[in-house]
C-alpha cells in the first residue's frame, strides 16, 4: 500500500513514515499543504493521511481541491481539534475518516488499511460474506457456520457483518462504535468488549477454531482460525 503523509511536524512525520514502513507499507512525506497537493495530484497513492493544520494550504482545503479535480483517493484527517463539529466539518470537506490527535498508531493503521481496501472494493457490496466455513447472508439476515445456523440479535448481526466485511483486517473498538452504532462519543467503559465477547460466545462456542481474534493493544479481527 502506498501512503502519503502530509504533516508539518517533522518528528511526527518521521515517526509515522517509519511506523508504516515497519508494517510493510510505502510511505511518502510532504511537509506542507501545497507540496502535499502536488504530490497527491501526481497520483499513485492508496490513502492520504493529512494533518488538518498545515502551512501554506490547510488540510481541509487540500482535500477540497483534490475532490474538485475528481481525485477520490481516500483521505484520513488527523487533527488536534477533536470536537464533534470539527469532525463533521472534516468529513464535509471530503475527508473519508477523521482521527483526533493524539492517536494510537494501531488505530491509525487499522483505519488506513480499511480505507485502502475500500478503494479496491467493487462499488456494490456483496450480498454474502464468507470467512472460512462461516457464511453471512446480508439479505436473509442469516449466519451459518459449518452449515449450522447461528441466531443473532440485530445488533450482533451488524457487528459480525462489519467484522466480516473487514475480515483479515484489524478493527478497533472506536471503529466498531462509529460504524456499528454510529456513535462518536467516549462510552467511558469497555462496552464494545462486552458486545464482542457476547458475539464471540455465540459464534465460537462449540467450534474448534475461534473466528474472532483479539489483537492486543489494537482491537479485533475476524479470520479463519484454521489458516
Amino acid at each position, binding site marked *: 500500500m502506498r501512503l502519503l503523509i502530509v504533516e508539518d511536524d517533522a518528528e511526527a512525520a518521521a515517526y509515522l513514515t517509519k511506523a508504516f514502513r515497519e508494517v510493510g507499507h510505502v510511505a511518502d512525506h510532504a511537509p506542507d499543504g501545497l507540496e502535499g497537493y502536488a504530490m497527491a495530484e501526481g497520483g499513485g497513492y492508496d490513502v492520504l493521511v493529512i494533518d488538518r493544520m498545515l502551512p501554506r494550504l490547510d488540510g481541509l482545503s487540500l482535500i477540497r481541491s483534490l475532490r474538485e479535480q475528481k481525485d477520490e483517493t481516500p483521505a484520513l484527517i488527523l487533527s488536534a481539534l477533536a470536537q*464533534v463539529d470539527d469532525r463533521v466539518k472534516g468529513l464535509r470537506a471530503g475527508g473519508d475518516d477523521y482521527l483526533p490527535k493524539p492517536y494510537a498508531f494501531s488505530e491509525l493503521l487499522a483505519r488506513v488499511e480499511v480505507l485502502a481496501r475500500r478503494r479496491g472494493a467493487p462499488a456494490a457490496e456483496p450480498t454474502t460474506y464468507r470467512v472460512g466455513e462461516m457464511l453471512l447472508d446480508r439479505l436473509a439476515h442469516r449466519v451459518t457456520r459449518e452449515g449450522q445456523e447461528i441466531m443473532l440479535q440485530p445488533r450482533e448481526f451488524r457487528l459480525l457483518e462489519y467484522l466480516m466485511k473487514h475480515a483479515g483486517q484489524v478493527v478497533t473498538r472506536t471503529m466498531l462504535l462509529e460504524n456499528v452504532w454510529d456513535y462518536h462519543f467516549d*462510552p467511558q467503559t469497555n462496552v464494545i468488549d*462486552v458486545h464482542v465477547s457476547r458475539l464471540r460466545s455465540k459464534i465460537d462456542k462449540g467450534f474448534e477454531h475461534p473466528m474472532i481474534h483479539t489483537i492486543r*493493544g489494537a482491537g479485533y479481527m475476524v479470520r479463519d482460525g484454521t489458516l
Partner: protein
Amino acid sequence: MTAPFEASQRKRSKFLPTLFRTTAFKLTAAYLVIFALFAAFVLGYVAWNAQRLLNDQIRSTIDAEIQGLAEQARQGGIRRLVNIVERRSRAPGASLYLVTTPVGERVAGNVEAIPPGTLDKTGESEIEYARTSETIDTPSHAIVRVFVLPAGFRLLVGRDVEERDRLGAVIRRAIGWSFALIFVLGCFASWFVARRVLRRIDGMTETAHGIMEGDLKGRLAIAGTGDELDRLALNLNAMLDRIGELMTGMQQVTDNIAHDLKTPLTRLRNKAEEALRTAKSPDELRAALDGAIEEADNLIRVFNALLMIARLEAGRVSDNMVELDLSEIVSGVAELYEPLAEEAGLSLVGDVAPDLHIVGNRELIGQALANLVDNALKYGLPEQGGEAAVTVAARRAGEEIELSVADRGAGIPEADRGRVLDRFVRLDDSRSQPGFGLGLSMVAGVVRLHGGTLRLEDNAPGLRAVIALPAARPKPVETLPPPGSETSTAAPNPAGLPSL
C-alpha cells in the same frame, strides 16, 4: 517644593472643563432655560393683562367725562363748557382737557402742546403732550379722545398714562431681576449638584481603578439614598460579587486541573522511571510501557473531557443542532450498555415512549446519556440486595421531554447533589471505581447547551437523574392529522415501547 502646588493647580484647571462636561451641569442648564422661559411667559402674561386692565379703566373714565361735558355743552353752550373745563383743569390730578375753535385755536384747557393733526381725527389715540403748567422738556404720554361739538368746536379729553407705564417698568424690572436671580441661582445649583454627583462618580471611578489594579475585595460606596447612583452602585457591586465567584470557581478549577492531571502524570513518570531502574527482561519493560500508554490514554481522555466541558460551558452553540428522535437515541444507548449491565449483575430496563423529538446534537445527547447510564451501572448496585435494576426512561411532560436514568444504589446525599456537578468532584464512596469526576459536569454542560435542566433526585433508594429538554415544535405538516386517525392516536402504542 513646588510640586504639590502645581498638582493642585492642575487639578483646579482641569476641574472646570470637567464640570461643564458633566451630565448634571447639562441637565441643570437645560432646566434653567426651561424655567426662564416659563417665568418670562408668566410675568409677560401678568404685565399684558395689567396693561389692558389699566387701559380699559382709562378709556371708560375718558368716555364718562366726554359724555358729561358734551351734555353740558348741549345744555349750556360752549361758554358753560369752557367754564367747567377751566375749573376742572385746575383741580389737582386732573385729566387733560382742551377745547378749540373749529380752526384749532385754543379756547380752554390744560394742554399746551399736542402733535399736529391730533384734533382732525375724532376717536381715541395715544399721543405725546405737554401740560400748560409744566416746564419740563420731556413730553408725557396720554390716551386722548377728540369729540366734535356743535358748531365745529372740538373737545379733547385725555388721561395721562404715566402710572400705567410706571407699572410696566416695574414689571420689566421684575422680569430682569428674576432672570438675573434665576441665572445666578441656577449656576450655583448646577455647580453644587454637579460637584456632588461628580464627587460620587469620581469615587466610583477610583474604586473601579482599585479593583482593576487587583483589589478584588473593593466595592462601590452606597450613599443609602436609594437614588439612581445608589442603584447603579448596588448593581455594579452585585456584578463584582458574581465576577468574584467566577474567579474563585476558576481558581478552583485550575487547582483541580493541576491536581487531577498532575497525579496521573506523576504516576506515568514514576512507572517509566521504575521500569528503567528495575526491569530485567524485555517482557517486564513491555508491561511497564503498556501501563505507561494506558496512563497516557487516560490523560488524553481527561483532556478531551475538560475541553468538551469548557466548550459546552462557553455556550458555543453547535452548528450541528438538528431535529432528533430521542426515543431512538435513548433506546440505542440503553441497548449499547445492556450487556455491560448484565455483566455487572444489573438489569437495564427501558421505558421509552415513541416519537419524542427535540432539537439537538445527537453525539452530545448520546454522550450525556451514556455518562448517566455508566454512572448508574457503576454505583447502582443495591446495598442490601433487592431489586437490581437501572431504569432508563423517556417521556413527554408538557412542553418538555424528560429523560431519566434511575438506579437502586446508594444514591447521592442531598447536600452533595449540587457539588457533584462540579469538575473533578468525586464522592468518597466512589473513589474505588474508575473515573475522573467529569461525567456529571459534562452532562450538566450538555443539558445547559440544549436549554434544558438537570435534576438529581432521590429514587428512595438510589439516584434518579432527570434531564428535561424542550420538545421540538412539531412541523406544520404534522399538526394536521390524517383523516380517521383521531381514534388511533389517542392511546400510545404499547408495542412501540422497546424492551431492553
